[in-house]
C-alpha cells in the first residue's frame, strides 16, 4: 500500500496541468521522484515539487496506491487523466477534465468539479459529492464518442450537456441538470434525480431516466406509453425520430 498526500504550497492562481497526478504515475515512486514530475502552470514549465508538498508512505503498484489531495485544487486540471487503477481522494474542489480518459480505479471528490469531468472515460468510478459543471462524461470537441464505460455519480447538480456523445457506462446525477443531457447519445445510461430540460435530442441509442420534472421536451420523441422501471412508473419515449434513433427516454 502506498499513500501519497499532496498539498498546495501556496495559492494557485494560474491553472496547472495536473495530468501527472495519477496512481499509475505515482506508484512505486519516492518523494523525490514525484517532486521532479512535470506540471505546467500556464505557459511555465514547473514541477509538482515546486507547487505542492508531497508526503509518501509505503510503496506499491498502481492498484494499491492512494493519492490524497488536501487543500485547494480548484485550479488544477486533468487530475487522474488516463488512470487505470488506484484511488484518488480529493477533499476540496478541482478544475476541468478530472479523470478524463480513465479506464480503471476510483476518484472521489468532496467538493465540486469543473467542466469535462470523466470526459471520454472508459472504466472505473468517479464520485462527486458536490456539483459538476458542463459536459460531465461528454466527448471533447469533435469526438464522436464521449463516456464509453465506468460510472459517474454526482450527489449535487450538474450543468448542461451531461453525457454528450456518450457511448456506454452510467451517469447518475442526484440533483438537477442543465439543458440537453444525453445530447447525441449513442449508448449508456443517464439517471437524473431532479429536474432537467430538453433531454436526449439527436439520440441514436442509450437510455435517459428523469425522475424530476422535464421543463421542456424536444419534439423529436415518440410516446410509447407507460412502463415500470425498477418499480417506478414512467412515460416511455423513443427517439430521436428524425434520425431514426433507438434511444429510450423515461420521464416520471
Amino acid at each position, binding site marked *: 500500500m502506498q499513500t501519497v498526500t499532496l498539498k498546495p504550497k501556496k495559492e494557485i492562481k494560474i491553472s496547472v496541468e495536473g495530468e501527472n497526478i495519477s496512481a499509475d504515475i505515482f506508484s512505486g515512486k519516492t518523494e523525490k521522484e514525484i517532486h521532479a514530475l512535470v506540471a505546467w502552470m500556464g505557459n511555465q514549465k514547473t514541477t509538482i515539487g515546486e507547487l505542492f508538498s508531497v508526503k509518501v508512505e509505503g510503496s506499491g503498484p498502481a492498484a494499491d496506491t492512494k493519492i490524497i489531495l488536501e487543500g485547494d485544487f480548484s485550479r488544477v486540471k486533468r487530475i487522474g487523466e488516463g488512470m487505470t487503477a488506484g484511488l484518488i481522494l480529493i477533499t476540496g474542489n478541482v478544475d476541468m477534465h478530472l479523470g478524463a480518459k480513465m479506464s480503471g480505479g476510483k476518484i472521489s471528490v468532496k467538493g465540486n468539479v469543473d467542466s469535462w469531468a470523466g470526459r471520454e472515460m472508459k472504466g472505473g468510478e468517479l464520485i462527486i459529492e458536490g456539483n459538476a459543471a458542463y459536459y460531465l462524461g461528454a*466527448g*471533447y*470537441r*469533435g*469526438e*464522436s464518442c464521449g463516456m464509453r464505460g465506468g460510472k459517474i455519480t454526482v450527489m449535487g447538480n450538474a450543468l448542461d450537456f451531461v453525457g454528450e456523445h456518450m457511448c456506454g457506462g452510467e451517469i447518475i446525477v442526484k440533483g438537477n441538470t442543465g439543458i440537453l443531457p444525453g445530447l447525441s447519445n449513442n449508448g449508456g445510461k443517464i439517471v437524473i434525480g431532479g429536474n432537467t430540460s430538453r433531454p436526449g435530442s439527436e439520440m*441514436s441509442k442509450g437510455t435517459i431516466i428523469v425522475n424530476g420534472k422535464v421543463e421542456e421536451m424536444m419534439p423529436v420523441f415518440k410516446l410509447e406509453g407507460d412502463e415500470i422501471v425498477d418499480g417506478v412508473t414512467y412515460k416511455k419515449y423513443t427517439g430521436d425520430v428524425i*434520425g431514426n434513433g433507438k434511444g429510450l427516454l423515461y420521464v416520471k
Partner: protein
Amino acid sequence: MELLIKNGAVVDPVNGNKGDKTDISIKDGKIVKTVSSKATIIDAGGRLVMAGGVDAHSHIAGAKVNVGRMMRPEDSRSGISPRTKITRPCTGYTVPNVYAMGYRYAQMGYTTVFEAAQAIMKARHTHEELEEIPIIDKGALTLFGSNWPTMDFVREKDMDKLAAYVSWGLLASRGFGVKCVNPGGGEMWGFGKNVTGIDDVVPGFDVTPKEIIVSLMKVNEMLGLPHSVHLHCNNLGNPGNYKTTLASMELANQVKASKKRQVMHVTHLLFNSWGGTNWGDFESKADEVANFLNNHKNVTGDMGQMIFGSATTMTADGPKQYANAKLLHAKWSNGDVELEDASGVVPIYYVKQISVHAIMWAIGLELALLTKDPYQMLLTTDHPNGGPFVNYSEVIALLMSNKKRQEEIKTVHEAVHAKNKLPGLDRELDFSEIAIMTRAGTAKVLGLLDTKGHLGVGADADISIYDIKPDQIDPTVEHAKIKSAFSSAAYTIKGGNVVVKDGQITATPLGRTYWVDAKVPQQHHDEMMKDIVKKFKNYYSMQLANYMVQDEYLTHQQVVKAGIIPAEVN
C-alpha cells in the same frame, strides 16, 4: 556543397541497379559523376539507398484539407508534438497541420508530393498551404472535370478552346496537371443528383462523362503536359462500379500519348474495383481491373490502399460524400465551388471486423499484386481517404511479405476468404518493385522521370537511406524490420541537404512548387477568354482580376514548359 554517399546498396530500377554497392556523388543539389576530395562523406554501410520517394496522389493542402482540420478537432489532438529548435509544432493524424505534412513525409524518405485536387477558384488557398509545407517539393493537380467552361467547350467540340481553357486554368491555379473527378457529377450534385455512368447526360450542358474524359485526354496530349489526365472515375464507392471503371479506362484507346507515358491515370482504384450490387453481395473485382491494366499499357493506376483505423474522406466528389455521411451517420461537410466543383469531407473509421472494410483492404493489396508491371500500379493510400500517408511502410511490408498478409488476414473479417483473391496470392514484391511503386513509377506517371525517382547523373539529389541491408534481410519473413525501416529513414537528403538523420528532422529548407506553363496560340486564348469574361460577368461571385494566383504565392516555383506541339513534331 559536395556530398558523397559511400557503400550504399543502391536500388535504382531506372538505371538498372538492384542493390549493388555504388557510390553516389552530389554537387549543388544534383547527382553528378564525381566529386572532389573535399566532399562530405556519408557512409551508408551497406544499407538500402533509394531515390527520394515521390507521391503522385495525396491530399496535403487546400480548402478540403483545411475543412477536414476544422471539422475534426479530435484528430488534431492525436499526433501532437511540441516545437523543437528545428521544427515547428505538429498536430493531427489524418489531417495533420502543414508543418507535419512536410516533416512526416521527409521522415519516411519522401521528397516530392503532389496534392491531388485543387479547384481553380480555391487555388490560392492551396498555394498558401504549399508555401508553408517544409522540405518536400510539391505541386497540385487542377480540377477540370465539372467546370462549366470545360463542359461548354466539350459540347461545342471545340478542342482549341478547351486546350486554351486548360492552359489558362493551369496558369490561374498554378497547377501541374489535369484532374478529373466524377466528371459531370460535381455539376449534377448542384441539383442534388449524380451521374450513374459514363453515358449519362449532364442536364443543362448536354454532355456525357465519356465526352468530358475523352476531350480532356485529347487536349492534355495536344498541350503535351508532363502528366496525363488524372481520373477519379464516376460511380466511385458504389458496389458494381468496376464496370464503369473498365469502360472509363477503355476510353484511353481513343487518344494517343504525346509523351512516353500513359494517357490516363486512374486514381485510388481500391474504391473503383467493386463488384456486387449492394453491401450484402459486395465483392472484389480487383482481378478484372488488374487484368485490364496488364493488357493495356496506356493506362496506369494507384492503389489508394486502406488502412484500418481513423481516416478522413475528402474529395471533389460531392454526391458521394453525401451518401457516405448518410451511410455512416457521420459528420459531413459539403462544399460548392460555384461554376467549378462540389466537394465533401466525411470522417470514417475502418474496422477489421466489418466485412466491407475487410474486403476493401484486401482489394488494394490485390490490385498491387495482380498488376504485373509495378509501373502501372503506384503505392498510395489516397491520403487521408484510405488512411494517412504515414502508413506507407505498413503497405510496403504487406506487399513484400505473404507471411504478414496471412497473419493480417487471420485478424480481419472472414469475408475476405469468399469475396477476395488475396488469401491465395503468394506474390512478394522485391525492393526494385517497391522502388518503382514509390519512386520511379510515380515520377514516370507524373512526367518527372528526368529529375525525380532515380539516382542517375543529372537527377535531383533527393535520396533516402533506410536502416536495412538488402543482402542480409529476408523481407518475406522479417516484415517488422521492413515496416520499421521504411517508416523512419536513416537519412533523407533533399536537394543535396541532409534533412533527416535517424528519423529526426535536421534541417527544414523550403521545397519548390511545380506548375505547368502550357502555351496555346494567342487567337485560341483570346477566343476562349471571351467566354470566360462572360462567365465572370454573369455567374461568378468574384472578379476575374482577383481570380489568378499571383507569383507572390510561389516563392520557390519550378515552371515546367509545355504547350501546343508544333505540326512538324507531331
